[in-house]
């Protein structure tokens, strides 16, 4: 066992579960505290700095932060982090005065961005204030990428999206909309110092089962259909619709179909309901809108009779898991014919690089993905960088944003002639004591035991009538302030100082969660040489969570060491309040250059 290295931020960042889980490492507890103080603009700017699209992500983020939230480990539900982010966006004032200034004197470097999705726009936002010229190419007439084409307006209103895109576009992006790049070779010959590819995963996957060829007029991929609805090319749909697939695209398809007037919308998915890829809240919303979701059916045939499209035949399956958790689908023998007039296939999507010539030195791997350095996102052509879905296949918006930060750092280094891997900037950090008095902290240290608040929405009957009316209303101020109190302030760390500890045991006595332990190291005076089993067997709660950190001190005066299990620490500060010598203090983690922490 090793004494924890507290000379860098890594241990502390891992303890802030939500921030660690966020691909862009958004300082979640910090902005929730600002919301609790009604400082919405400040809360928004904290978000904007790290995740670039707070209004968008406050509605449609995949929320990796929420399952990570420590509250899940001490009660049932996480803090409604995503919905609080929206509160900051909904209630902020004019933020233009706070945006970074873009220098009029440029640095002479020109960067081409291909695709105007979240990854490219993040690169633009990070590089513009540094003096780069940014030239953006987008095949659609408007920016936004999949945020616009694949996410329906009833989940993400166009005004919210436009506002946040404009913050970046108005920083001085040279936009070329409706301009498709058909040859990277040609672009390489143009006068660009670096090129960033953020073209997403634009190809919806087909299901090539019998009947696929003949039925093609009745079959469409989900993402292309959603995009044609978004851009007004499609405004009606037949009465009976089958959606294949169980991800968020499938949920968007079925809910959109319902709004266009389909009377009978059925989603069929081969997995079980619980194992569906769609976010739980998307599934629930679809069901609330009267969508029939049938799990455990795998499509085997598009049924066509006398040149007439009849529907889709399914085999009923059962998910069987082996001891490694690997799933196989076993047919039960039952089949089901679902008659319909339109099939929307939402079973996945792929990247597409027909416009990248294979003879220009840009290497592709065996999955036909560009071979990239994971840390720098640089391709084998040193001036070409990738990010977002284009880099590693379909992920989500927040991962694309994180890639954008990473790539922007790489491009900046590359343009200065520096090594993109070895010379990456380090993030500085500080731990700031929150002590105000004997029992007084500058954060809300007492624990709120309330259950998670539900987000209000318009009535489900109303919801399915309009394509563009947002379903969720967001938290009002009262709910927002209540929900903000639930945050455990995990970024306010319990910091331990060996030299002042007198081992009075006040901290381990008072800790409500049994986190703090003083243990005997055995026959050695070195923590490194101590038997980990011997140390762990002395913990107050021996069954530790292997995914969580331990804070291990250096030996104390008596030779004992302090081990704090960070797993369920409430950050209530009682240990520090009970410490007579100040060996414990509650200190807030502040990281500068958050973008550089993304590895």
């Amino acid at each position, binding site marked *: 066992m090793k004494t924890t290295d507290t000379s860098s931020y890594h241990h502390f960042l891992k303890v802030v579960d939500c921030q660690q889980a966020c691909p862009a490492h958004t300082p979640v507890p910090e902005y929730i505290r600002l919301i609790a103080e009604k400082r919405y603009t400040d809360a928004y700017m904290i978000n904007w700095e790290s995740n670039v699209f707070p209004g968008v992500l406050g509605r449609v983020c995949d929320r990796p932060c929420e399952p990570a939230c420590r509250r899940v*480990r*001490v*009660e049932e539900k996480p803090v409604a982090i995503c919905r609080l982010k929206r509160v900051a966006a909904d209630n902020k004032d004019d933020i233009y005065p706070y945006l970074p200034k873009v220098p009029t004197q440029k640095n002479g470097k020109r960067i081409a961005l291909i695709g105007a999705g979240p990854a490219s726009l993040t690169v633009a936002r990070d590089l513009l204030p540094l003096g780069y010229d940014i030239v953006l190419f987008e095949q659609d007439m408007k920016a936004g990428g999949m945020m616009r084409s694949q996410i329906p307006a009833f989940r993400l209103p166009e005004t919210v999206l436009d506002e946040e895109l404009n913050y970046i576009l108005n920083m001085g992006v040279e936009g070329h909309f409706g301009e498709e790049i058909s040859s990277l070779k040609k672009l390489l010959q143009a006068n660009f110092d670096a090129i960033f590819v953020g073209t997403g995963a634009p190809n919806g996957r087909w299901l090539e089962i019998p009947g696929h060829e003949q039925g093609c007029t009745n079959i469409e991929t989900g993402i292309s259909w959603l995009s044609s609805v978004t851009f007004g090319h499609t405004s009606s749909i037949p009465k009976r619709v089958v959606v294949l697939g169980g991800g968020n695209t499938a949920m968007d398809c079925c809910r959109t179909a319902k709004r266009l007037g389909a009377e009978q919308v059925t989603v069929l998915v081969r997995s079980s309901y619980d194992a569906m890829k769609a976010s739980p809240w998307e599934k629930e919303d679809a069901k609330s809108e009267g969508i029939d979701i049938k799990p455990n059916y795998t499509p085997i045939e598009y049924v066509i009779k006398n040149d007439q499209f009849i529907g889709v035949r399914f085999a009923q399956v059962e998910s069987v898991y082996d001891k490694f958790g690997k799933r196989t689908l076993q047919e039960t023998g039952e089949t089901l014919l679902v008659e319909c007039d339109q099939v929307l296939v939402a079973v996945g999507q792929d990247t597409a690089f027909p416009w990248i010539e294979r003879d220009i030195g840009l290497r592709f791997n065996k999955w036909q993905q560009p071979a990239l350095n994971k840390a720098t996102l640089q391709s084998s052509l040193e001036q070409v960088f990738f990010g977002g879905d284009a880099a590693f296949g379909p992920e989500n918006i927040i991962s694309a944003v994180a890639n954008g930060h990473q790539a922007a750092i790489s491009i900046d280094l590359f343009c200065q002639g520096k090594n993109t891997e070895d010379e990456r900037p380090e993030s500085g950090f500080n731990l700031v004591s929150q002590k105000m008095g*004997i*029992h*007084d902290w500058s954060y809300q*240290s*007492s*624990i709120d*035991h309330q259950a998670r608040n539900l987000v209000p929405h318009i009535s489900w009957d109303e919801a399915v009538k309009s394509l563009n009316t947002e379903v969720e209303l967001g938290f009002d101020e009262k709910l927002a302030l209540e929900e903000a109190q639930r945050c455990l302030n995990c970024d306010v760390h319990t910091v331990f100082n060996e030299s002042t500890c*007198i*081992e*009075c*045991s*006040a901290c381990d*006595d*008072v800790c*409500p*969660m*049994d*986190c703090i332990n003083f243990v005997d190291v055995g026959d050695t005076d070195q923590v490194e040489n101590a038997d980990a089993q011997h140390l762990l067997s002395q913990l*107050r*709660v021996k*069954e530790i969570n292997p995914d969580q950190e331990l804070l291990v001190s250096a030996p104390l*005066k*008596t030779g004992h060491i302090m081990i704090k299990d960070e797993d*369920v620490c*409430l950050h*209530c*500060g*009682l240990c520090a*309040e*009970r*410490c*007579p*010598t100040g060996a414990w203090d509650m200190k807030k983690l502040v990281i500068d250059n958050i973008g550089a922490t993304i590895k």
Partner: protein
Amino acid sequence: MSFIKSKFHHPRIPTNDLGLNYRDYEGSLSTLCAGCGHDAITSAVVQACFELSVPPHQVAKMSGIGCSSKSPNYFLNKAHGFNSVHGRMPSVATGANMANRDLIYLGMSGDGDSASIGLGQFSHVVRRQLNMLYMVANNGVYGLTKGQLAATADKGVTNKAGELSLFTDIDLCIMALQLGATFVARSFSGDKKQLVPLIKAAISHQGFAYIDIISPCVTFNNHKDSTRSYDYVHEHITTAAIADFVPMKKEITSDCASGEGEDICLHDGSLMRIRKIQDDYQTTDPMQAIVDIAKYKKKGEILTGLFYLDPTATHYHEINNTCDMPLNQLTQDALCPGSRVLTGINNSFR
């Protein structure tokens, strides 16, 4: 400000035979000074009662006046309690014990409460062999009145204000041994591995049990000239023997059967297990224990652990031959059997 401890608890803490976890044995959040040894004693009492699966409502917490006597408020908030006059806890405990012999009596006192104003009371409750656990949180100063030297402060030490201790100190363990206590131990608030088993054993002991607990006063007696400071005690503590209580139904686990243990069988078949840290130590001879305590003290060391245990002890109710049913449960008929019985009694004197 946090005056409330969160009701959330670790999802994987154990429960005892009653289905309670240790948090169910807590009391209010302490208002003693941060780092007070008494809070560690509180925590040890909580742990011991939890491990013994004591039903909280079958405990009576008795105390007098002082920082130590505030402590019962911080453990077992579902137990009965009486916070009495300064130094008079033994009388009140005796009364309560007379009325209801079925409760477990936990007396919590301090060096002022027991070694000064209540010394007479202390002596007599030991003599009486009241069936209780009497704990003294011994810090050598009067913390509640800002650190004057207590009667248990070692002769020759100075307090925080520089006042020299001119008089011989009182050792309550030695007094308890002289006066016939049947379970006598000393421990340290900072060593729960020793203290918790001792409290468990003392609660299980049927007779008068006394534990003197060195409990540093972090505010007024934790300075470098003190012999009751955390640092001094950590450096000068020696353990003689520890007693643990092994319930009858519990299988003897490997760490108990290490060969160092000596088992004493109790009335109900459960075991009192004595683990000797020092080979030649005897827990059966009170006079030898007195000599040992004095011997170590002369060397500047603090001898802790179980000093003396008499498993065949009798207590006040047995000595007085009172009835098995608690007196407070006797009905009117039993207490006033009527004129016929009275006549019989009167006739026996004729």
